[in-house]
């Protein structure tokens, strides 16, 4: 008995090793679950503070570039607004306008609004990448909200703490997004293959869909997370899938994840309602 005890004590580092490895793998496993532990992520108070500090320092570095992009985007939107006004004018001129029609002001026709936020931590070097942003539960952010940049789709909110949130970007194998080629209604599923941060793959797109290289890929709007029509990227190349019934597209992402700085979080007022409804449907 004493021999056994002595043996166990002399090999105690083995037990310690095994225990520590088990702890590590439990952490890894829990991280792979969709809902992640706040204590072990950069949305926790201490690590979040440091990430936020380093984020606020580095955010100055790209300021010139961001400024240029924003003013470009601004100009684009202004042009579009003018175009629409012009269109509206001609339409009004062509029709007899019914003055008595009033919109129901309590009903919001477009159930989305957005919150601006800054990226305080962003990883692109791993296979499972995450982004931390500086808005949290207190700003009305909840899990499953969509995140977009001024150029296109970024990802989906996964974990939320009081003042911070962790986002799963397109650059993460857990992220799946229903997308379509702009201008038609057939949709496919967007995933990332872990290779390049500039490309993702759109799979299961029916073979009779017509498109050319360079066409825009947008969100389909079939989930509660993103409204339809948000730009994801452009078609870079395509090939037939093995079973010959579907196309597999390589999509050049419009968001540049390497220089991500400001993002918007989309809030959908009807998300809960739709999810509840779909939940009921599943139970049938």
């Amino acid at each position, binding site marked *: 008995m004493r021999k056994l005890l002595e043996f166990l004590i002399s090999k105690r580092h083995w037990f310690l090793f095994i225990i520590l490895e088990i702890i590590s793998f439990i952490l890894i496993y829990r991280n792979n679950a969709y809902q992640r532990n706040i204590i072990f992520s950069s949305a926790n108070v201490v690590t979040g503070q440091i990430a936020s500090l380093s984020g606020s320092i580095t955010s100055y570095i790209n300021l010139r570039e961001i400024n240029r992009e924003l003013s470009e985007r601004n100009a684009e939107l202004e042009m579009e607004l003018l175009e629409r006004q012009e269109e509206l004018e001609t339409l009004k001129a062509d029709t007899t306008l019914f003055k008595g029609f009033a919109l129901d002001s309590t009903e919001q026709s477009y159930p989305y609004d957005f919150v601006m936020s800054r990226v305080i931590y962003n*990883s692109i070097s791993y296979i499972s990448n995450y982004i931390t942003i500086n808005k949290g539960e207190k700003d009305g952010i909840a899990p499953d909200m969509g995140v977009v940049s001024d150029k296109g789709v970024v990802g989906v909110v996964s974990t939320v703490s009081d003042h911070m949130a962790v986002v799963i970007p397109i650059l993460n194998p857990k992220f799946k997004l229903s997308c379509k080629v702009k201008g038609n209604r057939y949709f496919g599923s967007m995933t990332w293959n872990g290779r390049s941060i500039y490309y993702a793959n759109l799979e299961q797109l029916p073979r009779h869909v017509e498109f050319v290289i360079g066409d825009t890929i947008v969100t389909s709007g079939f989930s509660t997370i993103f409204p339809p029509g948000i730009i994801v990227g452009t078609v870079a190349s395509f090939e037939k899938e093995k079973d010959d019934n579907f196309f597999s597209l390589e999509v050049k992402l419009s968001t540049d994840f390497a220089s991500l700085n400001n993002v918007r979080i989309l809030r959908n007022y009807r998300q809960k309602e739709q999810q509840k409804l779909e939940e009921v449907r599943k139970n049938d």
Partner: protein
Amino acid sequence: MINTIFKGIIYFIIFVSVQILVLNNIHYLRIATPFIYLYFLIKLPIGISKSVTLIISFVTGLTIDLFSNTPGMHAAACTFVGFYRSDLIRLFWGKDLPEGVSPSYAFLGISSFLRYVSSFVLLHHIFLFFIESLTLFDPLFLALRIFFSTLLSIVLIAIVEAFNMEAVKNGE
């Protein structure tokens, strides 16, 4: 003794923060990321017990994990190399080494030290990248990442060691 602990804490703070704030953002061609914080584990004094080495390695890995949103990955890899550290040291320099000395160029010779660093870093990176690829397995890409990251880490550690004044002084 107190001095060694104090020095260890300073090393820990310096190299972990350099890793988190600077090197975590480097991913050359999306392939290579250097992990300089291993230098802290490499420089732990010879002769501290295996259990202590394991705990130190685990805590170091966990700290890196907390800041890079990779719970458990670095902790697992560091615990793994921590476990084999004393065996590696013994493999390259035999058994009769004075206790309480940090491995360095001057003390152990450049080629032995580099071999020690290389095998240490390689073990760590293989383990780390294998765990990472559990989510998405891609053998060729995995091998590329291990190779280039290891290369980058070794070069960086070799440079840091060459400029580490304290190690130079101790060798005289």
